[in-house]
């Protein structure tokens, strides 16, 4: 289990992580979403043992990763711009990792190489962005870590490779119980990949929840009223965002579909329906609550 406890990380006067606390269960695929500069990459690097926390702690099964090779050998980190040695090929990078990761599997490496359309002898520096990410992923899977950290892994991958990535990672989670933490702005990809999400904003965690629970717990309502009731009529609902066009009221509210519908029907609408939100819509709604919306930015 990963546990962040009052975790703080500062870069000079900037506080990138501000006393965040949450847990990630083993064997889950955890999506980190959030605004730019929210601290997602900083959290991944701290968890990978690259950054030393300035306060609090982050642990994997109770052990801090910083300067702890025992823990680090169980973690593989794919950063947003993976680094490869100058002139290195996939095979030479694999040779490098195989010396350092005790769980490195030659068989797994060969199997992954067969799945991804990459030339193993080709200089990685000459590969495209997406191909470089594939190369990093092959090495990560062959290292067979207990915890795989990926930062913007979908960036540059074509839709087929994204599906392949999700399938391979998913099978690792299913077969070996690997835990995955993935930071991405591509919420559509995360939506059908993650089982948990955490929303970061300005160095803090707005929430951390199971994805299904999250999606079920927030809904979009469209209703037509004749006449339109006053704002006090909706006070019983936990509304995040409201939009009124004539007699049509649209809003996003927290709560189960049944509870929201029951309260709306009590106001006798001409028409009412409750729609599930996509992860992207949930993200936008929650960020608006936190004051991060286009209107605020433009104003």
């Amino acid at each position: 289990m990963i546990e962040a406890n009052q975790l703080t990380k500062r870069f000079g006067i900037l506080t990138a992580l501000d006393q965040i606390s949450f847990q990630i269960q083993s064997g889950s695929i955890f999506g980190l979403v959030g605004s730019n500069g929210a601290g997602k990459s900083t959290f991944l690097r701290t968890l990978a043992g690259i950054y030393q926390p300035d306060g609090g702690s982050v642990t994997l099964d109770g052990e801090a990763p910083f300067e702890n090779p025992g823990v680090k050998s169980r973690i593989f980190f794919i950063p947003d711009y993976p680094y490869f040695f100058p002139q290195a090929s996939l095979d030479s990078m694999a040779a490098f990792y195989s010396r350092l990761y005790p769980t490195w599997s030659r068989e797994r490496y060969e199997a992954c190489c067969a799945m991804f359309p990459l030339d193993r002898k080709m200089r990685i520096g000459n590969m495209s962005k997406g191909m470089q990410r594939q190369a990093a992923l092959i090495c990560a899977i062959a290292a067979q870590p207990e915890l795989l950290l990926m930062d913007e892994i979908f960036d540059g991958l074509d839709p087929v490779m994204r599906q392949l990535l999700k399938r391979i990672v998913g099978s690792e989670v299913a077969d070996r119980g690997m835990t995955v933490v993935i930071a991405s702005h591509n919420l559509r990809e995360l939506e059908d990949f993650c089982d948990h999400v955490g929303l970061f904003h300005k160095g803090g965690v707005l929430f951390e929840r199971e994805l299904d629970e999250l999606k079920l717990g927030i809904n979009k309502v469209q209703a037509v009223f004749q006449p339109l009731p006053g704002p006090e009529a909706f006070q019983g609902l936990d509304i995040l965002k409201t939009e009124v066009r004539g007699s049509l009221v649209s809003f996003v509210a927290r709560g189960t579909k049944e509870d929201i519908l029951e309260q709306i029907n009590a106001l006798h609408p001409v028409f009412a329906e409750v729609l599930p939100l996509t992860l992207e819509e949930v993200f936008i709604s929650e960020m608006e609550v936190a004051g991060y919306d286009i209107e605020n930015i433009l104003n």
Partner: protein
Amino acid sequence: MILKTSSTSWKRELRETYLWSLKRNRGMMALFAALLFLAFPVLLLFGLANANIRMDPMTLEVYGVSAQYASVFGDMTGFAMTLSVPTLCALFTLLFAVQLFRYMHMKRSVDLFHSLPVRRSAMLLGRILAGLTALYIPLALNVGIASLIALCFNIENKGGQIGDLFVQMLGLMLVLAAAFLFCVLMAVCTGTTLDMVLSVIGVNIAYPILVYSSVYLVSCLLPGFNMTVNLDNTLLVALAPFVGIFLHASDAPTFFVWWAILAVFLLLSSVYLYRRRKSESAENTFAFQIPKGLIRFLITAVGGFGLGFILFWYNSSTANFLIGLLLGSLAAHVVVEAIYSRGFSRMKRSFAGYAVFLGAFIVFYGVVATGAFGYVDRIPAIEDIESVSFEDNTYYQEFGSDHFDIQGEQYENLASVKPEICQAENVEKVLEFHRSVVEFQKQAGFPFRMSQGGGIQYQIVYHLKDGSTFQREYQWSPFDTPNAEENSQRLQQLSSDIVNSEEYKTSGNLLFYLEPGDISQIEIENYDEQSDMAAKTYRLNDAQKQALLEALRQDTLDLDITNREDFSGRVACLYLRCGDENGLFQPAEGSKLKNLVGDYTGKIQVSISPYTLTENQKDLAVVQLLEEQGWTAEES
């Protein structure tokens, strides 16, 4: 299924890092070896193969061919090990350091290396070992090849040629380790490779200049202090190992002890700091601020001293120096800050560092100008003095001068003899002279002002009874003082009393050490400009040798050294020859020379200056003897 991994051991991490790093640098290592091969063994081979071996012109027989090859070998290894090899070593030390440690300076590579299951200490040490291996193996290989070439030319290890080469190599390896570790420390302290390289170059250039400038400033300002001529190499390059690479042939033990200590210090500091280095400092200018401040201080001081001395040399004015120091240091500070901060945004804040420099300089200058805590006034008590060496360079010295060296058959120096004053009355004369110099200096102005010395005029070295020495060297001229003429005459008189004393004249003059039997012949050379130069050699019998030596000694004792005339109107030169055709002779048992060389049993040689005869020296004992014996340059 979760694969539980075992904790990797530190040794394994070190080994894997070392092997991988060495593998990554094998190409550069091969290039280094190839260039060293061209710069040393190839040149040596051609040098030996084309050596001009001397032979007997009559029999065409070659004598001592091995020794002649050894001489060529010595010359070529001397060149290679002091210039070409150190140059390549210095270049590749920096290249390997950049190659191995630039990963710290890129965020992307830091993401990779700092997420690996390898402790930072193992990662750093593994790379350090790889770097040293990459430097040492090509060097040792090429020195080995050079030695094999030497053996192929039958150069035996007599005299230590091949052995010396290996000793030099070990010395070079030690300094290379210090230079490499210096680069490592700079890599750890900086955030970019450019800053690392600039810092390495900056410190290695600025530090020796700063040390020399500081010593020169003190020599200009503090009466009695002069270290610019005999400045210790170890001090001069103590924090500039890249300069030290070129001085590795030094035979001073302190030189190597220092590099060993520095290497250990740099190693421990690098590991300590790297373990605390923030990964996020990659691509910033510096990871730690203290080294930045020190380097900026160093370069600011060099800039200040540089312009200060340039302006000072115009008219020897202290004001010029201080104005130059202020302007030069300010300019250097701004330039360094602009380079390190990539602009002027932090300039205002950086002036706190400049204020520290100014404060340090004011304290330093104030201490020196006021006598350096009594340095100027310190004169040993007569009861503490065993003997004194005194030199007054304002008068001519000739014939045997007042000092000489004794060399062995291999031109090795066996002894150096200088005038030594031990008698209490003469020691008191030196003390009186010393006190007068100090007093006249203070009359010229206190706190002391800078003066541009024109070489050392007076040198006094007290050998104290506790075994230590106490030395003062004065560049100052008494003509600067308000009552200049009076002071000058006073010093001349005091100096005359010392150098004309019998003890002074006899203690350092070779004539008073030679035995008549040491003299083999004399040569007289005519200097008449109107006719062709003539010279004639005379072999003397024992009585003639005795008479000549006594005459020369008598003339020396009669001479007023401070009133020595110049050589105008010279008519002849008398050369005294000792020993065989090579000047080698066996000193007589129980003689003064034998006592000086101690246990040395071989033949010795001494250098003897010619004795110049002028027109107005007709009354000299040696001139009378020459006339009496009929010894002239012309055939009689």
